[in-house]
């Protein structure tokens, strides 16, 4: 392993569809950090993360994951990374255990290790009664939990989550937040987009606010308040102030 301390480094990342979606974005997320990316609809959050995960090709810029150039060495970068989208990516006709066996196989994890890990993950997410049921009848929340377990079963160093709490009930959301918190404490890096600003406020070490494809503010909650001349405002008020300013500009 190299001595790289940044889990993710984006330089001049640009993507254009009909309009500019991501505009020469520079962003650094440190190893072992919980980073929340917030922004209004269409700000470019998901596009940015999909480029990081290798699901979209950037028009320009560089993506480095733990020092690995993700555009030149995508397989090496993917080996240390997991991606969870807001729409759970699972197979209706597989059981959660079969799904995790498949994911572990794709990441080349030894069966003995992955089987124990899979069982433990599914139990911790409250899916023990459903281990051998096909996912076709699962609710969205249950499917999201299976997808999350799939992302964690290969023990990634960087987890990228796009709106992971969508569709989860309060208990499940707490389970997921607890699991992510445990991973960060164990040294894993988590990057998450969310519209639930309270989650970002409570869980994230640093928060990035993105609007029109550019990072308009970044830092801890205290730093964001300081940057905007407030001392005791919520992230929601700060977010609205930042986004309104950007829109006016």
């Amino acid at each position, binding site marked *: 392993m190299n001595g790289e301390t940044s889990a993710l480094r984006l330089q001049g990342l640009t993507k254009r569809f009909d309009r500019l979606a991501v505009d020469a974005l520079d962003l650094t997320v440190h190893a072992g950090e919980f980073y929340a990316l917030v922004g209004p609809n269409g700000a470019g959050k998901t596009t940015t993360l999909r480029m990081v995960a290798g699901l979209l090709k950037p028009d320009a810029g560089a993506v480095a994951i733990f020092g690995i150039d993700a555009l030149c060495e995508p397989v090496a970068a993917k080996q240390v*990374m997991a991606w969870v989208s807001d729409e759970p990516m699972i197979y209706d*006709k597989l059981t959660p255990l079969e799904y995790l066996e498949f994911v572990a196989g794709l990441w080349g994890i030894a069966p003995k290790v992955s*089987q124990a890990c899979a069982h433990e993950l599914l139990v911790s997410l409250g899916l023990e009664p459903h281990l051998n049921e096909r996912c076709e009848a699962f609710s969205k929340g249950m499917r999201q939990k299976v997808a999350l377990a799939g992302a964690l079963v290969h023990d990634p160093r960087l987890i990228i989550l796009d709106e992971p709490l969508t569709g989860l009930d309060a208990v499940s959301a707490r389970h997921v937040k607890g699991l992510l918190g445990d991973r960060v404490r164990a040294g894993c890096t988590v990057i998450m987009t969310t519209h639930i600003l309270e989650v970002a406020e409570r869980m994230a070490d640093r928060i990035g606010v993105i609007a029109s494809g550019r990072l308009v503010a970044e830092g801890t909650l205290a730093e964001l308040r300081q940057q905007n001349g407030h001392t005791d405002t919520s992230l929601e008020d700060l977010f609205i102030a930042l986004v309104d300013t950007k829109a006016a500009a």
Partner: protein
Amino acid sequence: MNSATALSLSWFARHELRLAWREWLAMMTGGRRRRTRAAIIGLIMFAAIMHLPAWAVIGRFATLQAPLDKSSLIVLSATIFLAWALMLSQAIESVTRVFYARADLDLIMSSPARLPNVFSIRIASIAVSVTGMALLLSTPFVNVLAFGGGVRWFSAFGVVVAVGLSAAAFAIAITIVLFRLIGPARTRLIAQILAAVIGAGFVIALQIAAVLSYGTLSRFAVLTSDAAARVAPNGDSLVWWPAHAVLGDGEALMLLLASSLVLLGVVMTVFSPRFADTAVTAAAYAASSRKGNGARSFRGGSRQAALRRKEFWLLRRDPWLVSQTLMQLLYLVPPAVFLWRSFSDSSAAIVLITPVIVMAAGQLAGGLAWLTISGEDAADLVATAPLPPSRVIRAKIEVVLISIGAIFAPMVAGLALAAPPQAAVTTAGVMLAAGSATAIQLWFRVQAKRSQFRRRQTSSRLATFAEAFSSIGWAATAALALAAPEAAVVSGLMTCAIVAATWKFSPRRD
């Protein structure tokens, strides 16, 4: 019925027709609105061109006049029955889709509308769409008959309507009775299998009877036989009504139409109140869970092995695939029986088996390739896995070819015992047809859900036609290789040209 109800019913009927029209249009245009004009022009041209094969197939029958002899009545009635079976098959598929696809059922059932009325209209709309499609397909044939034999043949349109309405009525009754008898879990699979094999089943049964009785694969051998004429009822029997109606007998046509309408009315009256219950049961099934294999150890192997294992799991559990494979295997039963009969007398007619096997392999490989290559439910997961896209594709292609090998190897092995050179040609044909169909699906791959399989043809008409023509081409080449090797070279080169042209027109990929 008060005016408010009548208004809401006519409003709902218009809504259903609008949905049916848009779904049909989307199917024709591949979901691209700009293509509507081109699709309509293409459809008109297709309908015009279809008059040529229609002329070739039934042009010589245009001068048929009543009264017909028994053999002609049997052939005509069997043809009408085959059309009815095909419409029944399509209607069962439509009814099953209405129950399980949910779509707007939750909205309808949570509304204050009277459900029996609403579902009566839904039943009627299924009947109209099945009949409409049948009218469209039968038009070239009826036109050809009318052109050659006079306007009396236009009564065939009335028979098509009657056949469509009764097929829809039977489909609804069969599906709802299946629900009651075997429950929603099994009904879905059984209905899909029924829909797949009902149309083919009739032809295949005739072929098997022909093979066993007359040593030929021609189903007409049975229909025109003295034995069939002996057991057939007299000329004034109700059984011949549809045939008389087709020939222009107005009284028979009116009776046939009236019977179909009464049948559909009875089905609507009896089953529309049960339609809601059935939909609720199907929804409850969707919310229930099916047990998997139970706890077992995770298996090791390479990353490609994990992909292949996953694909095999999903293929085994795919109800469409089960029904389609059964249908393809069903098509192979007559040649298999033929092979078994020819084994002792080494008939030269055994050659006919090869194109059937090659064609079936190409068609099945195309479906399998779509399911494995395009129908990836977790595309993001596979794309973010640490293995190059080329290895993902290779693993998926391997799954298609292994599956085709497993299905067709026993057939070819049986053939090898009877005729080794023919088995070698058949093997080559199967490999070429399966390889070409897989390659075409690979070149035209689009990311889709497996559940969208029904609509796979709409994504690219070119791929659909190319897949069909390459299978036909390789089947013809294999048959010619056995009968006239020089012609096989020409046929093989033409098929290669089709595949090469398809590759040339396929979308560019990075």
